[in-house]
């Protein structure tokens, strides 16, 4: 044992015996020194509790879980970003060295025929999404897109890429007739069915945002939480999740450190006795990767659940409750 911690033990003995010094200050002060020793010693051997022996601690300690679904989609770009990227692409077109077709395609192959057909349709422009623009011609200076042109939007970029991906020449180098060209399947919409119906129970809604699982208990909407029963925070959170929302979720608890806390002060009588216990709720952050919550048969009396974004939570939760947890929520 290090000398410093030995000293602190000695002094702690003095402090706990002398009534003039506030025990809270003393323990707060010495914690940093004691922590070094405690981490080495097993966590199960508890330090002698100085305060709890005198008066019972007036708080219930609860462990809660903020189960979040991370964003599935990239964010929608700002219109300025779209315009800027397009602008830069055209500048790049003015500055790059020309595309040499013969380097990439063997002569008289299906791939080469396909390529030349598509480039011809684009008016000779090599880039797929830039419209008809030649960076080396005498009109190259006219590279700025006019206001209101949809060419720079993500939608039109997607369309041009899809159009380019469709095969126009068969394997035996025959041009496929336009009515026989098989278009490439479009990727799914960013706005899902659940968004349109505003189904707050489904997890495929608001796919650009983080969703948070809230449940409706006896005292309104909140994150699932329960009083600790001689266990640690993350164990408690795991138990709460399994009991409240069922086991059919693929989840991951991000660390054991609480990310938020909500404190409800105890109600004290005139002579200091506790009339109503306070509550300290610590929240562990969890991520869900598959599955769905199922409140069937939960012991906490939860009747309903929702997957909500940050803004929707602000409307749903009580203001002081939201103030306690809002710091852990990401912007998107």
């Amino acid at each position, binding site marked *: 044992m290090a000398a410093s911690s030995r000293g602190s033990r000695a002094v702690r003995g003095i402090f706990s015996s002398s009534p003039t010094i506030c025990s809270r200050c003393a323990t707060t002060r010495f914690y940093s020194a004691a922590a070094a020793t405690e*981490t080495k010693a097993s*966590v199960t051997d508890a330090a002698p509790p100085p305060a*709890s022996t005198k008066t019972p601690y007036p708080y219930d300690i609860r462990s809660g879980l903020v189960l979040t679904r991370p964003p599935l989609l*990239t964010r929608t770009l700002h219109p300025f970003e779209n315009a800027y990227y397009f602008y830069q692409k055209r500048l790049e077109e003015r*500055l790059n060295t020309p595309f040499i077709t013969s380097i990439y395609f063997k002569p008289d192959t299906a791939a080469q025929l396909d390529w030349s057909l598509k480039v011809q349709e684009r008016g000779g422009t090599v880039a797929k999404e830039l419209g008809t623009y030649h960076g080396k011609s005498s009109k190259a200076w006219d590279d700025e897109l006019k206001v209101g042109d949809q060419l720079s939007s993500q939608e039109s970029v997607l369309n041009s890429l899809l159009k380019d991906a469709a095969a126009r020449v068969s394997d035996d180098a025959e041009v496929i007739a336009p009515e026989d060209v098989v278009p490439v399947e479009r990727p799914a919409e*960013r706005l899902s069915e659940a968004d349109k119906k505003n189904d707050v129970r489904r997890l495929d809604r608001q*796919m650009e945002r983080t969703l948070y699982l809230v449940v409706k208990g006896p005292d309104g909407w909140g994150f699932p939480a329960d009083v600790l029963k001689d266990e640690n925070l993350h164990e408690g959170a795991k138990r709460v999740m399994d009991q409240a929302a069922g086991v059919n979720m*693929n989840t991951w608890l991000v660390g054991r450190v609480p990310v938020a806390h909500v404190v409800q002060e105890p109600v004290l009588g005139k002579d200091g006795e506790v009339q109503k216990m306070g509550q300290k709720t610590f929240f562990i952050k969890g991520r869900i990767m598959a599955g769905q919550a199922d409140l069937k048969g939960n012991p906490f009396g939860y009747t309903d659940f929702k997957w909500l974004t940050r803004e929707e939570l602000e409307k749903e939760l009580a203001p002081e409750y939201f103030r306690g947890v809002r710091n*852990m929520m990401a*912007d998107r």
Partner: protein
Amino acid sequence: MASSTSITGLFSRLSLLSRNTTTATMKTATTTPTPRLFSTTSSFLARKAPPPASGGSAPKAARRNRQAPKSENFFRIRTLRRNMFSPAPPPLRMARLRYLRHWTIHRAWQLFRRKQHEAIDKERSRMHAGMYNACEELRKTVGPGSRGEGYLYRVAMEKKGVYGLEGVPIEYARFQTDSPAKEAWNHEWKR
């Protein structure tokens, strides 16, 4: 100089033909009764006439041997050699107002990026502050049960099993994409 090489090329081609046809074409081409020589240098005069073609295969073979054999990548290398050393395009030049527009766009982009970065910084410090406050509260907490002050905090700070191969599940390593999967979320997942 280019013209003379083309002439030699012609002659090499001519030598493939039989001797008779050569003289015949020469006659038609030049209209002089006697075949005139293109070059009158002494070396050319001193050169002996080729021996009469005995079947025509011998000179062909000799010519093939003179050429270096083409590698299988010959055409690919030729394409690369022609195009790899193309001069870099000239730098962009802009007129005054065009440059001013470019400057405006550039400044706006810098500003936009800075605001984004500041927003990210703010978000992170906010989340960190939230964690810090929660941990501070936890450190001052007594319990659960007969545990002493700060017990839960010490456990929370333990890093056993947090890192390593088992630390983060592989399903969590999913990138954000521009469009959702066909089935955006697997609601029917069972343990």
